[in-house]
């Protein structure tokens, strides 16, 4: 059976989580590989969360926030805009491919856009294959 990537989604409560909800209310289908947890602002995403996810078997992490200028706390997403690229540079040294960690801006009315991003990311990571971090650490019995 083909490899089903497991992706963690960390969404900000005011815009992207509401956008994901809108995808639901408008019945826009997307692959089930992304599992979403909610934080108040994308600025709350601590780099350790991403590392924890990758270590705990996630093949990819999707972080979503409000469009710059839309943030409920006015500047939260500007901080995320700096932290996540910096984190990705560090993760590159650990062999984590760039596409495994992704940052997207989604407004509360962009349900379709959220679904498209999830589809796109699932396909990309399916191509990339499972994250080797998870396999080595847990010698996970799952096939390649």
């Amino acid at each position, binding site marked *: 059976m083909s490899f089903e990537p497991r992706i963690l989604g960390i969404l900000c409560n*005011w815009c992207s989580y509401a956008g994901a909800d809108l995808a639901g209310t408008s019945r826009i289908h997307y692959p089930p590989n992304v599992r979403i947890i909610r934080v108040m602002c994308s600025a709350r995403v601590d780099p350790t969360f991403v590392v924890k996810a990758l270590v705990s078997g996630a093949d990819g992490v999707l972080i979503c926030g409000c469009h710059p200028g839309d943030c409920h706390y006015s500047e939260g997403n500007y901080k995320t805009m700096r932290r996540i690229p910096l984190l990705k540079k560090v993760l590159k040294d650990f062999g984590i491919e760039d596409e495994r960690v992704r940052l997207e801006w989604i*407004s509360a*009315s962009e349900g379709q856009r959220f679904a498209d991003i999830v589809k796109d990311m699932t396909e990309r990571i399916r191509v990339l294959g499972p994250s080797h971090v998870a396999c080595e650490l847990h010698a996970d019995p799952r096939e390649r």
Partner: protein
Amino acid sequence: MRSGIFFCQVEENNRLNINAVAKYAANLPSVEVVREMGIHPRLDAKDLAKQIQADNLQRIVIAGDMPGYFKPVFAKAMALAGHDPLEVRLASFREHGASAAPTLERAKAIVACAVFGVPFALAVMPAETTVHQTTLIIGGGIAGIQAALEIADAGKPVCLVERFGTIGGHMAMFDKTFPTLDCAACILTPKMVSILQHEMIRLLTNSEVIAVSGSPGSYRVQIKCRARLVDVEACVACNMCSEICPVEVPSEFDAGIARRKAIYIPFPQAVPNAYLVDREHCLYVQSAGKKCGACAKKCPKECINLDQKDDFIEMEVGNIIIATGYDVLSAEDIKQYGYGMFPNVLTALEFERLTNASGPTGGKIVTKSLRLNKRSKKEEWVFDPHGEAPKNVAIIHCVGSRDQNFNSYCSRVCCMYSLKFAHLVKEKLPDANCYEFYIDMRAFGKGYEEFFERIRQEGTFVIRGRSATVSQENEKMVVTGEDIIRDKLIQFPVDMVLLAVGLIPARGTEELSRMLGLTRDEDGWFSELDYNGNPTDTERGCVFVAGMCQSPKDIPDAVAQASAVAAGVLRSISSGRGIGHRGSVTLSDIEARAKSLQAK
């Protein structure tokens, strides 16, 4: 202090008996001279100065509908005569509500106050009344919602009555809002949810106020809650009933560009988040129970009761806030733009729904394509998500606005939302051309002018000159106009035309104003107590107006007015003293009060 009163009218006003007021004014204290100068008199400062010197007048009162028009010449005359030009006072019938509802009493009172040198608003203090804690808000658009939340957050009970199946008003139909292009849903839906969950707010949708009686501070209100035929508490909006329903009609929420069933929910995030039955089109209701009834059987929670009757609610309220919003002028009446004849001539609301991410085409901008309607077996022009995108889009401003043949006033928001449309077209169809026909680009608000500059840089052709006609030439829609700046006639083919149609008061404003005894200006919008000093109160005690229903305005101004009205309501409730009808104050009260204030 010898005073002289001059009656000068700007416009013909046969409803007010000027010389009756003049006779009354003659025997006011310190009044030496009373002269009626007629309609728009030719006044010369020199001979006025002679008159002033002859009668040695220290104070001049100009009385009329808009006396301000004559103040400078009198001030000049006073200066020439060596008297103090500041001693020219205005007794404006229009400002203080004497030309709208022309009561002789009111006109006399205004003149009296001017003679005593006391501002009219100070002298006319209606008797204070006790105020019932509950506030009634008519209209569940952004203004109604904002006022309801502000009052309820202060712990005061509110009853919000909305005629449509959901609150949210026109704003819920929009996708992006100018000038920041942030999404209307992100602003509105959280407020709508908090209205639903707020313990101090009683929400009555699908309901209308049918009778108001009682006095300021304790109005008895009768509300007709039209049967929704669906139990709001039970329904979880699972859409099963709608799938079964055989009846399909144009959806009001989608401005008619998409269809909905007889049992429907206006939009997914509607509040209350429940379905309702459109009783004019439901087969069961129309056939008095003989036909269909499929939805009731299908509903897993049995929350559909097609025999539910309207119910009538009586309640006592202290303050009434009117936030009934607006409607759009019907574009069919403006023949030269071919709305109704050419399929791809759209009104602004239709385009809002077309570009909305949760609209019929999911936000894709497409021209209408001819599709066979399965039910009616007729070819119809509909928006199909896979339709053909337009190459040339023309946006025409001031359609039916600033036009003596339709609305003489400016509808204030069309310039900005038209620029927003131009941006949306450029953003979603990068290779499309967008033409903007305007007369004056009214980008007056915070960040509006910068938004206009950005749109210009994005490559929209902004043409000064309202296009005159939309016609058909060999199968192609053609827009004709004059490009005034480049001084040439232009005529070119377009695939889609957006009409920024003018705004008119909401349907039913006529009955509501009669029910509450409110005056309206000649364009039909509610009249405020005082244009500058008090833009949200009204002549009637404890009755306020907020948002578009007072005159067209954009969302920030409507929200600001809604909060301002909340201030008035909270002040009256917390101090326990509401202001009565201004009409109830008699002439003698005003005179007495003016005399006492003059003494101070």
